[in-house]
């Protein structure tokens, strides 16, 4: 029993990455009604950009991370402006096709540029672990959680205090009213994509040190991000955060007590179960179609 708090703690740390991934997905979904299936590939691009800056250009690590996140932001903005804007009113299938196409395109390009050999990134925080009775605090795990908290706080400030945030909230609620209020929706949407992709990129960079980096690394991370978003009802940021953290803990419990190799399958089964019982997610609302 004494390892349970430890498992929960590591689960929360892992879950903060899922929460970041889910936040990016939900932010973009709320603003434009599009699920970005390329989110994982974009996280991969960010991680490889960091790796390239670090090992190719020998930029200091923190600066490399900052530059890579800037690139992720630019990638998100460019994707919205150049591609997604053209299918804003297309049927869902077309939108899904586009983001899947981007997923393949980016994954393929990363493979061409960087090859398929596994790469790695160093830990961002390299302090020794702290023992607190039976509990061991791993600084890098605490760092993951701290990043989540800081980014969420920043996001809240952005949403509540800035004109861009007002636009983002308006987009997710009532486009017509937002337009009346004189908010340029196209610009807000582009910037939202930038922020959403940067969040995915942050999750990607944080995830790499504990695994290895290949063009397909982020498939799992993003599927967990989707699951977290669905758990949270796919529409609220708080749902995404809670969903992500919850998923991290559940995942860690499965890995410890059930079968480490089947965690994704069990999580997927939980997702199906949740959707079957509540088709709009655990915290979601029903949508009624009018004749």
């Amino acid at each position, binding site marked *: 029993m004494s390892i349970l708090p430890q498992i929960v703690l590591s689960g929360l740390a892992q879950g903060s990455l899922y929460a970041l991934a889910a936040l990016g997905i939900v932010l973009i*979904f709320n603003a434009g009604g*599009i*699920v970005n*299936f390329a989110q994982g590939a974009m996280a991969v691009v960010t991680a490889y950009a960091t790796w390239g800056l670090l090992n190719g250009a020998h930029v200091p690590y923190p600066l490399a991370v900052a530059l890579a996140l800037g690139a992720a932001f630019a990638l998100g903005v460019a994707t919205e402006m150049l*591609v997604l804007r*053209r*299918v804003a009113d*297309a*049927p*869902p*299938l*077309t939108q*899904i*096709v*586009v983001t*899947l*196409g*981007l*997923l*393949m*395109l*980016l*994954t*393929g*390009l*990363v*493979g*061409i540029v960087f*090859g*398929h050999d596994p790469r790695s990134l160093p830990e961002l925080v390299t302090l020794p672990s702290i023992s607190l009775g039976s509990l061991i605090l791993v600084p890098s795990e605490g760092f993951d959680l701290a990043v989540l908290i800081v980014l969420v706080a920043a996001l809240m400030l952005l949403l509540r205090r800035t004109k861009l945030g007002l636009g983002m909230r308006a987009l997710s609620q009532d486009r017509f009213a937002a337009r009346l209020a004189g908010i340029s929706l196209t610009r807000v949407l582009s910037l939202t994509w930038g922020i959403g992709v940067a969040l995915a990129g942050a999750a990607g960079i944080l995830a790499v040190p504990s695994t290895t980096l290949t*063009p*397909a690394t982020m*498939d*799992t991370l993003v*599927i967990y991000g*989707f*699951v977290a978003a*669905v758990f949270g009802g*796919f529409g609220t940021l708080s749902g995404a955060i809670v969903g992500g953290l919850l998923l991290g803990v559940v995942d860690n419990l499965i890995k410890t007590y059930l*079968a480490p*190799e*089947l965690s*994704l*399958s069990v999580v*997927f*089964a939980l*997702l*199906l179960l949740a*959707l*079957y019982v509540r*088709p709009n997610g655990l915290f979601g609302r029903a949508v009624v*179609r009018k*004749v």
Partner: protein
Amino acid sequence: MVSSAVLSFARSERFALLALVLAIAFPIACGFRTYPLFIAAQFAVFAMVALSLDVLMGRSGQISLGHAGFFALGAYAAAILSARFDVDLLAGAIAGAALAALGSLIVGLPATRLSGHYLGIVTLGFGVAVAQIALKWTALTNGDEGVHVRTIHLAGIVLSSPLHVYAVAFVALAAVAVFAARLPRTRLGRAFAAVRDSEIAAAAMGISVARTKVTAFVISAAIAGAAGALYAALTGFVAPEDFGISQSLLFFAMVVVGGTASTAGTLLGALVLDAVSQGAATVGGLSVALIGAAIVAVALFRPAGLKSLWRRGEGSR
């Protein structure tokens, strides 16, 4: 109007036949060497899966981003039955189809209440989960090492050369193509389309929307599963890496590039993308990038896909 409809149908059949003839002729032109036979037979198997996906996506309007999962279930069922019990390919294919159909219930049942993006996520997760189970349930699947198929025999006849498997694959593809092409002119096919186009009107016309959606999933998965059994017979070896996200996305791309709700379009899309992925396979990532670029371009500029070569004025659905 009537005559133009008939004309366009004939044209679409011509394109489909062209695709088939090219694929069948390729190994013949290469003098029946093993590798071209293998490539052509593999196309036939992939095209079967693409057609099964179009039955689901094009005809019944439900998305699947995890069709490699059904394909894998069929392949593993047939391979394991062959490796352990020396089971006949026909029985293996039936078992594969049945297992895939059973698996489709897992996603098909929630799918009755989900649509669009949600269903995309669920099916994507399904595909990944199947591949992961195949990798980790080593007692059954040998994990990374894969399962080696024993001698392949069909209805008692030993398929000793690639030529035999090639012939069987194309006969099977032809059967699936005929089924897919006839489906829209049957009661079931109309029910699929009704559910795709308007669930409310479909229900008003006495169609049980939930049952129809599940039926589409089951049929589609069964075909993909049977194709998986053939794949096991063709390669003689089944391993998890053949059934990842990228394989699911390849099937998806074949349908989208070819044009949904079109048998001829899907066949053509399968041919083009299979050729791209074979041709560019030597450079890591190139074929994936090309196919990705292709489906983005299709979605942006030609939502109807390759079928717009013979059909005009239709968007993608």
